[in-house]
């Protein structure tokens, strides 16, 4: 394809920036502390940019636009929830967690409740969440290189896994911290500039254009090259010009696709006339405008109970953020509790600024490039829309920009995740030093690589949403109750982690295996947070109440550490003072 060289160049530049700055960090990263959390006291603005840089993943950069294009504006709940999660984090954990001075969630768990076995259980869920969250990043990389270069899916997965693993094993987070902040700005520019230009080129939005009562139509004659074989679900007969294998016969000329299913093999070229209704790849819901603009999750799916799905997603994303291990580590790098609060406000601003733009791609994709519904590759809308709407060098430059932004997203999020996972293995399970950390990084990267190859067929945001559901059902109750409820015991904490984490993980694995596609089972297994989060809270409370003998001995001093403003603290290492 003509646009490949520029995009590949841009991806290489972003990757080199990451590796070079990571390599520069080697000279200063000498102790395990340096590897795990960069030197403390990062100023709030830079820390906020680093948190946002680490947080905005493949799901945000590519997935949000793709999901909205496919399932409608109700999917805006994903970015809204991703941002609102930081408000919950601010309200419930930001300042106390920093004041407590724990590096990681397992540190917090053992420090607060005084039981090494609780640390082990918490560590297991750090690994589960971290690995789960790596999958959409790897899928994003596989998809991006496939769309840009036509390489098989495993190439992108492999490239990302190798780059990130070697970078982490070499330099740790010391080098990455700086690059994370930079990568936020790369991602913002890479999505904002193309979005604004494309909106200008497309001539804005006409009133009622989105909510008209029919599925999308081609506004101009459109040529579609089918790269991956697809089954089309035709609801309105459409006359096309076909060149290739359709329904097992070779065509080279006019062809009418009647109502029903039609198999189109890869390599086929279909030319749709202006005004034709776009048939959808099977598996994609066919939405009229009214369903597409509705504010519900899964509005277009039959028997999906949209209100319940919407609220379940809200629970998962609002409460999941404050249980993400790789994000919480960053709060330790604030100077004090006040700085942690300021950092969180700035994160909200930075994320809000970013999330204005993915919807632009979804809206323009639906109106101006309905061919995406034909190929079914809705997750690639951000990557392909510049080329679809702007011909020649302009489209190539913008295309290269979004490709670079997408790679920045994969690199920064998977780096942060790998540091957390490797850190949890080395620090919490094996209690080793720098060399153990390096080895754990390689093992963690290899596990991620193998798992990443299996998830090609899942939407990016579905994978991320599941990860949030597990985080919300485990670390959210642990932190909230640990900070605000004096009667929490380690026995109760373990009961809640095991029940909440176990039930949400099982629900998600069943969904991945195809159990419960429709109706209530589909909602409760596919979006489990609505019942697994309350279950975890109730388990922690009930079991703690039943086991008051296991309260930590020095409970009051733990609570002082969490809640006492800095001005009242004795200058003592136990209070997290430098």
């Amino acid at each position, binding site marked *: 394809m003509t646009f490949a060289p520029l995009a590949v160049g841009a991806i290489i530049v972003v990757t080199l920036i990451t590796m070079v700055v990571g390599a520069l960090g080697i000279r200063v990263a000498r102790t395990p502390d340096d590897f795990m959390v960069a030197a403390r006291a990062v100023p709030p603005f830079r820390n906020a940019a680093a948190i946002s840089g680490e947080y905005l993943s493949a799901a945000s950069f590519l997935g949000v636009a793709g999901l909205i294009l496919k399932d409608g*504006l*109700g999917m*805006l*709940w994903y970015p*809204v929830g991703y*941002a*609102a999660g*930081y*408000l*919950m984090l*601010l*309200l*419930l954990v930001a*300042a106390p967690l920093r004041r407590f001075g724990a590096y990681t969630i397992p540190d917090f768990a053992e420090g607060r409740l005084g039981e090494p076995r609780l640390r082990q259980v918490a560590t297991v869920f750090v690994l589960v969440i971290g690995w789960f969250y790596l999958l959409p990043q790897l899928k994003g990389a596989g998809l991006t290189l496939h769309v840009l270069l036509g390489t098989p899916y495993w190439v992108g997965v492999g490239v990302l896994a190798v780059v990130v693993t070697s970078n982490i094993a070499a330099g740790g987070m010391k080098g990455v911290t700086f690059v994370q902040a930079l990568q936020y700005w790369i991602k913002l520019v890479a999505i904002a500039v193309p979005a604004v230009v494309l909106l200008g080129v497309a001539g804005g*939005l006409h*009133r*009622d254009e*989105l*909510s008209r009562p029919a599925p999308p139509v081609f506004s101009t004659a459109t040529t579609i090259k089918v790269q991956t074989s697809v089954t089309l679900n035709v609801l309105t007969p459409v006359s096309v010009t076909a060149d290739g294998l359709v329904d097992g016969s070779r065509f080279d000329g006019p062809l009418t696709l009647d109502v029903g299913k039609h198999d189109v093999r890869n390599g086929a070229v279909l030319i749709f006339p202006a005004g034709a209704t776009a048939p959808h790849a099977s598996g994609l819901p066919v939405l009229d*405008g*009214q369903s597409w*603009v*509705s*504010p*519900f999750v899964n509005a277009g799916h039959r028997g999906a109970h949209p*209100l319940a799905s*919407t*609220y379940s997603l*809200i629970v998962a994303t*609002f409460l999941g953020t404050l249980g993400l291990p790789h994000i919480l580590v960053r709060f330790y790098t604030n*100077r*004090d509790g*006040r700085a942690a*609060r*300021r950092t*969180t*406000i700035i994160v*909200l*601003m930075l*994320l*809000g*600024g970013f*999330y*204005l733009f993915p*919807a632009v791609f979804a*809206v323009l994709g639906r109106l101006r490039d309905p061919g995406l519904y034909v190929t079914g590759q809705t997750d690639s809308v951000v990557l392909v829309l510049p080329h679809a709407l702007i011909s020649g060098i302009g489209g190539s430059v913008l295309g290269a920009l979004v490709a670079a932004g997408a790679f920045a997203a994969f690199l920064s999020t998977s780096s942060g995740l790998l540091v957390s996972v490797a850190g949890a293995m080395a620090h919490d399970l094996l209690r080793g030093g720098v060399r153990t950390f390096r080895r754990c990084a390689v093992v963690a990267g290899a596990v991620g690589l193998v798992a990443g190859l299996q998830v090609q067929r899942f939407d990016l945001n579905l994978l991320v949403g599941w990860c949030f559901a597990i985080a919300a059902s485990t670390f959210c109750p642990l932190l909230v109750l640990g900070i*605000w409820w004096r009667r929490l015991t380690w026995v109760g904490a373990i009961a809640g982690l095991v029940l909440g984490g176990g039930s949400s993980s099982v629900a998600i694995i069943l969904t991945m295996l195809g159990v419960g596609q429709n109706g209530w089972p589909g909602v409760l297994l596919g979006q489990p947070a609505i019942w697994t989060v309350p279950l975890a809270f109730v388990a922690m409370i009930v079991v703690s109440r039943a086991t008051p003998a296991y309260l930590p001995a020095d409970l*009051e001093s733990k*609570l*002082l550490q969490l*809640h*006492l*403003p*800095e*001005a*009242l*603290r*004795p200058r003592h290492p136990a209070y997290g003072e430098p």
Partner: protein
Amino acid sequence: MRAADVVEAGRHSVNSRAFDENGEYRDVLLHSLMRAQFGLTLSFIALAVGVLISLPLVVGLAPSLATRHLFGLPLTLAVLGIAVYPVLVVIAIAYVRLAERTERHFLDLVEKL
């Protein structure tokens, strides 16, 4: 938040015996601070959740609203795509102001002891 506040609270260390190892009011003071902060957190969660979850509820009750337009954009896009983000930031700033005021009052109280 004025810059002066940040500098002041960051540097100055309150001299009080209330939080020495066995200060007699220590636990009472701590519990009152925790209760005040948690009350603030709960009211802000109620506010944020109330604002955010009302849209699906309202449209669930009156489906025709979904096709209405606001500033030339479909309602869902205008609210969930744009308006919600500044609202989140305003709620966050208001919370931090009140949480820090609670802490200042607490410091004043402790200083008097």
